[in-house]
């Protein structure tokens, strides 16, 4: 008897629960926002923004999922067909995801797309249509240790510098005898996401007008070779060294530890140095210009809306809330590592992070995204290994570039 009464009671409770969730489900729409965790402050700010959005839109519930190993998790979610409504997309994966047909076209949905940096909007556009509004971005700039320059009696690097000035300053630092033992003038990794900056400064381009990948081909060949010659010579002459040679995890750490007088990193280095090495005195300026003029690299992410999506209106409402002018101002005011993706908010960001931010914002005007086509992992490996070998003096620059171009053509033909 007791058992059956219990059963009736629990059945009733379950029915009530089912009914109530059914009623609730009619009223609110739940959309999932998936991304990777950043700093705690950044994650908190995102959650606060989402909370503000939910308050302004009582009918929409946002489930924020910040997962480790995000790209792999997202990719498996795509493959299963059951994937989040809104997700981060890095610049190198955007084309691949569009090709796979999992990203919705945002043209017509995105609020005031003209306010984004043109270079950023171009990364996430296909045939002039903006698919995903850029979330935020980082540029490379030159960081220098002011104490080392003072000790050697040298002028600080400035925005008018060229490759020759960089090399001359590195030589002067090395010759001055004022650097501590084991410190090199320049911290530089044989990493193509740094080295491409020299390629761009030498006048190299990644895509032609038809959108074909043209690294190192035709006119770009000389640019690639001269960029590799310049950087390899810096390393072989002992003026530059990689972070592993300096026993640091990355060049920013080597710079913070005082093992490199200069390095080139993105704006993520600002909060890193402030938090981890508060005693280091340092400044920033734009990267030196090469024979092809000014050039820096940009790294960005965007909010994309899934193509198989039952709630596109609500998804776009969320994405616009996070990336419109007000959203960009919120990113700027917090002064995180990455910069807001709208030009208008650059000044607020500099205000938040201080004058070291100027060089990064200035680079936004001419920055290039080092994006290789989908499935070009083999090319990146081949070029990365080749750049490493050239830095160590094991291979000639021309051979490295020729080999990389060969791989690129082989992949294009696939």
């Amino acid at each position, binding site marked *: 008897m007791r058992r059956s009464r219990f059963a009736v009671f629990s059945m009733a409770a379950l029915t009530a629960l089912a009914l109530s969730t059914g009623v609730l489900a009619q009223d609110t729409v739940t959309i999932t926002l998936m991304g990777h965790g950043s700093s705690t402050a950044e994650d908190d700010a995102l959650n606060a923004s989402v909370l503000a959005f939910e308050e302004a839109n009582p009918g929409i519930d946002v489930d924020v999922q910040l997962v480790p190993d995000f*790209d*792999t998790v997202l*990719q498996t979610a*795509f*493959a*299963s*067909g059951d*994937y989040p409504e809104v997700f981060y997309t890095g610049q190198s994966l955007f084309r*691949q*995801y569009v*090709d*796979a*047909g*999992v990203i919705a076209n945002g043209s017509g949905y995105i609020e005031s797309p003209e306010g984004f940096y043109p270079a950023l909007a171009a990364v996430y556009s296909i045939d002039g249509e903006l698919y995903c509004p850029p979330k935020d971005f980082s540029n490379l700039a030159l960081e220098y240790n002011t104490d080392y320059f003072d000790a050697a009696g040298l002028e600080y690097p400035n925005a008018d510098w060229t490759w020759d000035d960089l090399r001359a300053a590195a030589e002067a630092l090395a010759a001055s005898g004022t650097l501590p033992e084991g410190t090199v003038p320049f911290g530089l990794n044989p990493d193509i996401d740094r080295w491409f900056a020299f390629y761009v400064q030498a006048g190299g381009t990644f895509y032609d007008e038809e959108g074909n990948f043209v690294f190192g081909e035709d006119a770009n060949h000389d640019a690639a070779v001269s960029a590799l010659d310049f950087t390899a010579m810096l390393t072989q002459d002992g003026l530059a060294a*990689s972070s*592993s*040679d*300096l*026993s640091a995890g990355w060049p920013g750490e080597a710079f913070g530890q005082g093992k490199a007088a200069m390095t080139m990193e993105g704006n993520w280095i600002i909060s890193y140095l402030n938090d981890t090495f508060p005693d280091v005195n340092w400044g920033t300026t734009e990267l030196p210009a090469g024979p092809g003029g000014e050039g820096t690299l940009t790294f960005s992410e965007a909010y994309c809306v899934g193509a*198989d999506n039952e709630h596109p209106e609500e998804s776009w409402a969320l994405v616009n809330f996070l990336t419109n002018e007000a959203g960009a101002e919120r990113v700027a005011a917090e002064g995180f590592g990455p910069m807001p993706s709208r030009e208008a908010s650059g000044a607020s960001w500099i205000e938040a992070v201080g004058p070291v931010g100027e060089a990064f914002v200035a680079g936004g005007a001419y920055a290039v995204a080092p994006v290789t086509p*989908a*499935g070009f*992992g*083999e090319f990146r*490996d*081949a070029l*990365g*290994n080749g750049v*490493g*070998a050239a830095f160590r003096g094991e*291979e000639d620059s021309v051979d490295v570039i020729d080999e990389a171009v060969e*791989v690129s053509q*082989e*992949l294009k033909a696939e």
Partner: protein
Amino acid sequence: MAQSTTSPTAASPTRNATFKDKNRQEAMTGLGFIAPAFIILFGFLIIPMFVAGLFSLTNWDGITPIARGLITEENPNGAFDFVGLQNYNTILLQEGRRQESFYTALKNTIYYALGVVPVQTAFALVLAFVVNQKWLKGKGFFRTAFYFPSITSSVVISLIFMWMFSASGLVNTAISFLNPSYDPVTWLDNPSGTLHLLMNGIGINPTRDMLRVCDPATLQLWGCEVASIRLWDWLSGPSVTMATIMILNIWTTIGTMMVIYLAALQSIPSQVYEAATVDGASRVQLFRYITVPLLQPTTFFVVTIGLIGALQVFDQVYVMTSGGPANTTLTVAYLVYRSAFSDSRMGLAAATAIVLFVIIFVFTMIQRRVTRESSGDRA
């Protein structure tokens, strides 16, 4: 009542029926007992293997939702198309970058296995023999100490090794202390092959120009490409960085192997040793002629699981080097991951995984044959 009406002749079919029922009941019980294991095996092993085999025949990118199905004229937005054995051809036979990657990974993996398996087996045997000695004090401590690396997360150990082997880490500091003229080695970012270094040491040092030439007539063979890799590069040996990972893996797996050997050692009856001692065998002879032969089946087991583990090495590479420098720590298992997730070629990745499976299978069979023959000789 029923019994009385049943004739004696009808009784035997009834008894047969109950017997059958019992038989069937037993079968059902048996099936019921193996069902959980069978379902798990089927769901998590057999189906995935079958699906991987199927994917290896497609050009699926691993991103497009699989439910979109086959690409056809009516369904141009499908997820995949069958390409037959194209993926196998690309990695195994067709000259080019992908073939080079595969054979580089295979070369690295084989050098890795050749280095790791014998060393860890030998060390494990010696350690087990030592901690099994009656005269040893603090046996429990030593057994725990040697087993400890095996029960620690490989990711944590990899990170500790990264600190120890960094350019100014513990290892370099210690060597510098012992030998002040030592030029610090960058262990974790050093693509030079250890065999190359040995050959350079004895004067075999082909110049860059010699590596470009392949002319069998004049015996200039260093530049000859076999499977898109130059002969000289085939003979590189594991790179210094790979050797570091090998040391790490030997250190972590010795404990497990030692415990297996220890269990086997303790099952060798002491009478055998006593008899041999009476016959005048020395300690070394006891080890060589009693212990090692009686451990033959255990050795087979240890070498087999060691070999399989070595051919599948992944996590240390993932944590420490991502396949670099210059692809010298790229292993086949890591290549599978790389093609699937950073190269978006799930079909190619599946084909590579299947080839890896076949390689492991063949190696294990060869090793089994060799072990059996050597034990046969002794018998």
